[in-house]
């Protein structure tokens, strides 16, 4: 799958990625090697046809160029055998390509049946990712902003979105699936290489689409996996203020500043307990009730002068507690 490395000498100036080959990011999942091989097969097929077409064109241009003494010759205007050949042969090749492609696609969509597949709930929303791990081996739910998985274990991601369409893309795993609001979408993979790899949103979703990036961390063993998740996800055992600050950093920071500057949404500095004017002219006191409403149904009452572009959030009670504590701390 490093078949193109031979060309590297020619394009030596390109700074190659830290890992991976000229064409590909590292092969970090069970399907990566297979689909890369498919890519290479198509690539060389294309190169062969391309060289043939361009070579013949170039040859004819040189050999039959208009020049004194050269005159065009009448040749056959069609040749059935030739035309059938150059239709049927490529078609046959393409059917082979389709066959290989189908094999790997079926690998990609069917999680293994004979072993336990761990479910992770993925939520893509403007403009953050969150990953939820249920129960075993945790005490209750854990939610993390980065995706944690263990090497060589199969995972099924169950995805949804509360606002618009997002798409989860893991280049190192060669997988991608849209998160469509109003339904579940599923995706499975088995990581085969420990390390950290980027995770992108690839369906345009608004202003900060290009900042909707996180990381997938593939752990060597279950212990480091569990510890990392608890470290990131267990907010319950932290003091409310710290809890609120972590939630702010993960979810709100893209659009709301804490230094009083205007961004996509109003700044949080001094907002607690303030009377804000809404877009319909009414006045609203920023308190627990309004903050909760703004999180659950952001479009209901919008502060005047700001667009209606926030995504709805649902939190657990201890998380709300943290958010209120944090907002209160920004009062002065």
């Amino acid at each position, binding site marked *: 799958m490093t078949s193109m490395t031979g060309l590297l000498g020619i394009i030596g100036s390109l700074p190659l990625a830290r890992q*991976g080959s000229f064409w590909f990011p590292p092969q970090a999942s069970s399907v990566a090697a297979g689909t890369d091989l498919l890519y290479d097969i198509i690539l060389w097929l294309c190169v062969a046809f391309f060289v043939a077409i361009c070579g013949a064109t170039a040859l004819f241009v040189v050999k039959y*160029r208009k020049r004194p003494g050269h005159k*065009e010759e009448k040749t056959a205007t069609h040749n059935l055998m030739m035309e059938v050949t150059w239709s049927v042969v490529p078609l046959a090749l393409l059917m082979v390509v389709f066959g290989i492609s189908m094999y790997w696609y079926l690998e990609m969509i069917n999680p293994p049946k004979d072993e336990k597949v761990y479910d992770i709930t993925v939520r893509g929303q403007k403009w953050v990712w969150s990953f939820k791990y249920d129960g075993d081996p945790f005490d209750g739910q854990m939610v993390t902003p980065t995706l944690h998985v263990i090497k060589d274990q199969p995972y099924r991601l169950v995805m949804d979105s509360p606002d618009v369409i997002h798409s989860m893309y893991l280049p*190192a795993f060669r997988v991608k699936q849209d998160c*469509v609001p109003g339904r579940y979408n599923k995706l499975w993979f088995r990581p085969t290489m420990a390390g950290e790899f980027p995770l992108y949103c690839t369906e345009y979703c608004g202003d900060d689409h290009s900042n909707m990036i996180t990381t997938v961390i593939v752990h060597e063993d279950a212990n480091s996996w569990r510890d990392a998740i608890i470290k990131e996800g267990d907010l319950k055992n932290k003091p409310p203020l710290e809890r609120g600050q972590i939630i702010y950093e993960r979810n709100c920071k893209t659009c709301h500043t804490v230094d009083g500057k205007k961004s996509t949404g109003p700044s949080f500095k001094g907002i607690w307990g303030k009377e804000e004017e809404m877009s319909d002219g009414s006045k609203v006191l920023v308190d627990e009730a309004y903050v909760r409403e703004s999180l659950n149904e952001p479009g209901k009452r919008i502060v005047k002068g700001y667009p209606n572009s926030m995504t709805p959030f649902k939190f657990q009670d201890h998380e709300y507690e943290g958010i209120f504590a944090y907002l209160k701390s920004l009062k002065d």
Partner: protein
Amino acid sequence: MAGGVVEKPAGAYGGSTKNYLNETRGIKNWLITLDHKRIALMYLVAVTSALLLGGFFAIALRTVLWDGAVRDPQDLFLGLRIEQMYNRYFTLHGAVMVFLFIIPGIPASLGNFVLPMQLGAKDLALPRLNLMSLYLYWIGAIFFVGVLALGGLDTGWTLYPPYSLGRDTSIPLILALSAVFILGFSSILTGLNFIVTMHRLRPPGMGMYDMPLFLWALYATSLIQVLATPVIGLTLGLSLIEHVFHIGIFLPEYGGDPVLYQHFFWFYSHPAVYIMILPAMGVQSELIATFSRKHVFGYKAIGWSSIAIAVIGFIVWGHHMFVAGQSPAAGLIFSFLTFFVAIPSAIKVFNWVATMYKGSIELKTPMLYGLAFMYLFGIGGLTGLFLASIANNVHLHDTYFVIAHFHMVMVGSTLNAFFGGVHYWWPKMTGRMYNETLAKIACLLVFVGFNLAFMPQFVAGTRGMPRRYANYSDEFTIFHQWSTVGAYILGAGVLLQVIYLTHSWFKGARAPKNPWGAASLEWQSDSPPDFHNFTKPVVVMAAYDYENWEYDANTGGYELRKEVVETGRSIATVHN
């Protein structure tokens, strides 16, 4: 548009002093004209303006992408964050290029001019409808200008709900939806008109198989225009109603299904890709045959493969939705069907190469574009195979690989063919020759710039660079910088063309009747043609009977052989 045409000296080049450009004067006479040639010229100016506008957005995008830095939200440009600006620009770039340039580009400007003349006819079958198409186009274009003036739109040209329909910036959205709806009807009426013309206005003695292949390509294009465009019209109509009334067909919060929109959208927009490329393939057939002075090889295969592409185009739309939540079974079937598009496309390419065999190949500017087409369409078409195979598509979908692929096809091939066609028919349309040296330099700039701009994107995409990103991680910087340099060179090439073509319109050398020795019927008219197209009876002949013409050193162009004029009959023996 009409202004500045210099009177032709009487008697020069055998034409009369009157032609379609100076038959009547004044803006009003142009605005109410039913003459297909004038309408075509107005289209040409309009689509070129759209190209320049879309190109401006492209240059702006590439400039932003010079580095991948995440911008401070406080950095505002014209009151918007850089990301917001970028999102609006890529939307308008896509929408303007697709709806205002590529779809009407070749058919409405070149096709409109050439089609009736290649049939030896005076005009299209339904001239009033033709003028109406032009006005609908203008209205649509004005709507888009309105979108721009009102601060733009950031939904992407695909307008996927729920993102596109949930905005509080609803006036630009409503304008854009209406614009596409109206432009759709412009496109439908043009296609309808072309089909009727090809059926009813062929001269006696010219069968379907005697038509130039450009017309076959336009025929296939028109079929798609008529049968696919209404679907997007209604889809966007529904979006409009959904946006205003929340009826719950597409929006999930009211019980709708956003994936249904994507099905509807691509039911049109995939065939629309062939609306963009088929006319380009038609132009290519003319260029390769004429400048090789060879009867085109496999006429019927090329002609029918156009129709095949049009028909297959209707049954493969789902390959835009492999990861959108479409069912895996549907994905596999669509992937399978998609491979079949490759065959008629490949047949065309092989036949073009075979046409050049033992010809007499003259590297005039249009032919250079023809050769560039062969190369760029080769890459564009072949990279389609990666995307058609579903296992790879999952990885490549919505990355720069897709961007590079469709730019190779739509811009690389279609824009190239458009340039080739404009240069090829320029002497006929304006009666002037352009500067050959400058034209070759421009062609080189376009070719080099184009490759530089898009080849690195294949690698970036495969390495995982997502599309529609205003910033990116450092590992992609080098690809983007090559791309940006390429875009500037490409832009320079296009600007150079605009400059020397405009100059030649006013100051260029007089064009002979048939500067290239082409055999299709439009070359029997004067350059520029008479208001009624032909002043003498047309000698009906098949499209590639080159031996009916011989070079005349006095005029610098080709003239019909004496015996052909006298007998009024083609002397060629080869038939399709």
